């Protein structure tokens, strides 16, 4: 059910209250002519189920259930019609519709649909492995549970013609989506032990939209304005999952366990008598871990409440007999009510449409969009307190420093050997500026040329420029071994060309074909998202890529530190192509006066990204298909088809590494 039905009820009450007045206006006051049809349906549905319903009835309600249906159509006035349809199988599967037309001065349409969606439940049984010190394992707390969501959609739209002002109309609409059920949630406890926990979570989501608008048309000019609000809420209980204590490497005087964790203390005070495998007494203590999230149960999959308010203004003016100009302005503010953060979106679009002669249709358009998010000052100590130094059960927390302590030291009161202060290593408090902040401009045109009666050729061009306000930065080492920050190019530009041909031959053959080519400069990428290779962990071992020597780790000499691994991440990853060519064609042929037709289609696409340095990729795909369609009037339709698709990708595969 809709959690807050008042907007819907308000709309219906206003409409029903106004209907007699509208219907009784002027000539409509003639005696009503009653035309009413009522149909009532009842029945029963039984079923037999074998094995899984997950795919075979992904959206179907198949449980045994009574069937109920109602159809009511009435014309209480000769210019007014009312209709109502309801059909219900069970709570998971029902539909309804209502419509009212009062002399076209007030029109109301309302629909309701309910359906079930059965969801996967991955048993996560494949997530079990160890390597060196790293472990991944999984626990499924909801093994075998059939998750599903019950969806209910409500939509009401009403439109009124102003009785006194010709061309002025008002409209209002309410739309609600309710989703209830359970679904799978995965969470990961990180740092050495990668423990994936699967569990079901309650889903009780509602999305509600309410819109009010006005439209005015007079002569060659149209104006339209709409204000709309959306509210999204998740009232399902937020689950919790265990976050375990971080495993730490063995310090001096300890013998590491087989899984790479600290293990046990070596017996005796004399290092010379320690058993083989013990960490030498001269080894510096490793860094303290800096995990706030460990040794407790924490909330996972928390879903924020979101609210949005949007304004949309449109204007259209006819210029001459065959031309028109359109302007659209959109402004919206979306707030995450859980965090009180907002983003603003503003868009302007102008287009001009005209006929050039009798055979050429031209459309030119320009867009300008701005997206701006609130900055976030991340202050982890203010939220969670100081990062704890967590020892093993029964053992005190070991002395030591965090990497941030080490990098931020001023050298006065820290142990010798610490590096100079570097503000780049600041993960407790920092300002996060959104990478999504951007200005996007588009400029393009389409023209359709009809050189012959049954054929047309379309040419299109679009230029797009995306200018990000806060381009990505990446950390790396310079030739002197200093940690430095680089800023990447924040501008992406693409140009798209399109040619399409549509032709009919003697009414029996139809052919259309299109070629689209897009070239992109600096496509979107996950900057420094991948580690191409690692060989020789440090400068003393030969460095990485030959020219990026890394200073020796100050704590622990045998294991790779996370900041070293991050600095080695030099490979940008990207799914968007820098070159993209698509060709497609399809044809259909039917013999004269026949009731069947033969169709075929072919498509080819080649795309590549050659701007990623280490991870350039190329992907070619093609497909062909054919079908026979037999249409024997309105009572018979038969379709037999086959389709084959092929894709070949040549890309760098980067093996995921866990660096906890």
């Amino acid at each position, binding site marked *: 059910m809709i959690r807050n039905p008042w907007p819907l009820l308000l709309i219906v009450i206003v409409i029903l209250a106004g209907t007699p007045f509208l219907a009784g206006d002027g000539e409509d006051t003639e005696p009503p002519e009653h035309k*009413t*049809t*009522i*149909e*009532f*349906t*009842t*029945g*029963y*549905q*039984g*079923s*037999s*189920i*074998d*094995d*899984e*319903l*997950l*795919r*075979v*009835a992904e959206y*179907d309600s*198949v449980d045994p259930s009574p*069937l109920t*249906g109602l159809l009511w159509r009435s014309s209480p006035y000769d210019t007014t019609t009312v209709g109502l349809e309801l059909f219900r199988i069970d709570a998971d599967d029902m539909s309804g519709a209502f419509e009212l037309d009062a002399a076209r001065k007030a029109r109301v349409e309302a629909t309701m649909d309910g359906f079930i969606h059965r969801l*996967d*439940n*991955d*048993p*996560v*049984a*494949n997530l*079990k*492995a*160890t*390597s*060196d010190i790293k*472990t991944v*394992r999984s*626990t*499924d*707390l909801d*093994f075998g549970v059939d998750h599903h969501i019950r969806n209910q959609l409500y939509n009401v739209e009403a439109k009124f013609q102003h009785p006194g002002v010709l061309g002025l109309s008002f409209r209002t609409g309410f739309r609600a989506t309710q989703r209830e059920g359970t679904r799978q949630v995965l969470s990961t406890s990180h740092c050495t032990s990668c423990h994936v926990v699967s569990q079901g979570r309650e889903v009780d989501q509602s999305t509600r939209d309410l819109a009010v608008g006005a439209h005015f048309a007079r002569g060659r000019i149209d104006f339209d304005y709409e204000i709309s609000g959306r509210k999204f809420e998740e009232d399902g209980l937020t689950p919790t999952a265990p976050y375990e204590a971080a495993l730490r490497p063995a310090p001096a005087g300890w013998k590491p366990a*087989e*899984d790479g964790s600290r293990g046990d203390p070596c017996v005796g005070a004399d290092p010379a008598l320690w058993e083989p495998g013990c960490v030498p007494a001269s080894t510096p203590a490793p860094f303290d871990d800096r995990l706030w999230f460990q040794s407790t149960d924490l909330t996972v999959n928390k879903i924020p409440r979101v609210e949005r308010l949007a304004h949309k203004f449109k204007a259209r003016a006819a210029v001459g007999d065959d031309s028109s100009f359109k302007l659209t302005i959109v402004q919206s503010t979306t707030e995450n009510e859980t965090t009180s953060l907002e983003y603003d979106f503003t868009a302007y679009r102008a287009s001009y449409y005209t006929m050039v002669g009798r055979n050429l249709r031209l459309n030119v358009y320009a867009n300008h969009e701005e997206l701006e998010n609130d900055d976030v000052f991340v202050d982890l100590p203010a939220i969670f307190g100081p990062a704890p130094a967590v020892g093993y059960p029964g053992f005190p927390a070991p002395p030591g420093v965090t990497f941030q302590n080490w990098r931020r030291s001023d050298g006065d009161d820290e142990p010798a050997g610490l590096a100079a202060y570097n503000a780049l290593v600041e993960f407790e408090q920092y300002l996060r500026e959104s990478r999504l902040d951007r200005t996007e401009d588009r400029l393009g045109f389409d023209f359709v040329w009809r050189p012959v009666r049954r054929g047309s050729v379309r040419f299109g061009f679009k230029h797009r420029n995306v200018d990000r306000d806060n381009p990505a930065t990446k950390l790396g080492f310079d030739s002197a071994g200093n940690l430095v920050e680089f800023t990447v190019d924040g501008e992406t530009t693409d140009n798209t060309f399109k040619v399409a041909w549509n032709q009919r031959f003697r009414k029996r053959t139809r052919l259309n074909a299109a070629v689209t080519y897009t070239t992109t400069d600096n496509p979107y990428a996950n900057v420094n998202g991948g580690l*191409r*290779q*690692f*060989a*020789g962990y440090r400068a003393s071992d030969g460095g990485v890529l030959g020219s990026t020597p890394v200073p020796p780790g100050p704590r622990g000499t045998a294991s790779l530190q996370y900041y070293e691994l991050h600095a080695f991440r030099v490979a940008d990853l990207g799914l968007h192509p820098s070159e993209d060519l698509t060709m497609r064609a399809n044809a259909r042929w039917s013999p004269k006066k026949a009731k069947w037709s033969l169709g075929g289609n072919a498509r080819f696409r080649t795309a590549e990204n050659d701007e990623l340095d280490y991870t350039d990729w190329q992907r070619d795909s093609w497909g062909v298909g054919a079908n026979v369609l037999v249409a024997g009037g309105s*009572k018979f339709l038969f379709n037999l088809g086959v389709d084959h698709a092929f894709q070949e990708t040549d890309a*760098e*595969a980067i*093996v995921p590494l866990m660096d906890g």
Partner: protein
Amino acid sequence: MLSDKSEIYVNGSLSQTDGSFDTLHIHEYSDVPIDLIDQDATDGGTAGELPGPGDDGILPGELPEATDPALKFHDYDFTEVHDYSNLEYDELRITLGANYEVLPSVKLFGAVALYDLDDNEPYLQNATGAVTVVSGGITWMF
């Protein structure tokens, strides 16, 4: 349509969907330290071979011990990874129904629907299933 008062209808579809990946071709760099892969038979692996996915004897939902030898496997050679993406579904969906007008204001209806799906390449979950739905009822018109 059989007569003015009765009709029989049938609609259905039969589809076979098949998708598969070729074996991945890996261009290995000589400096990638694949020698870190544990190939020692004493810990449950097989000496001289790169271990791959298989029956590890652990039931889903069961928490393994950290030293369980079944945990000792990797698939760095990627020779079997492509099989994870294989799909093969055979699906039949057919409905046979009939309507009969008993009186001008009364109609009977009935239908049998058969949905049958074979998942021939299950991964993680076997989606094979079938359901038969029988429905019938009466409609009054006023």
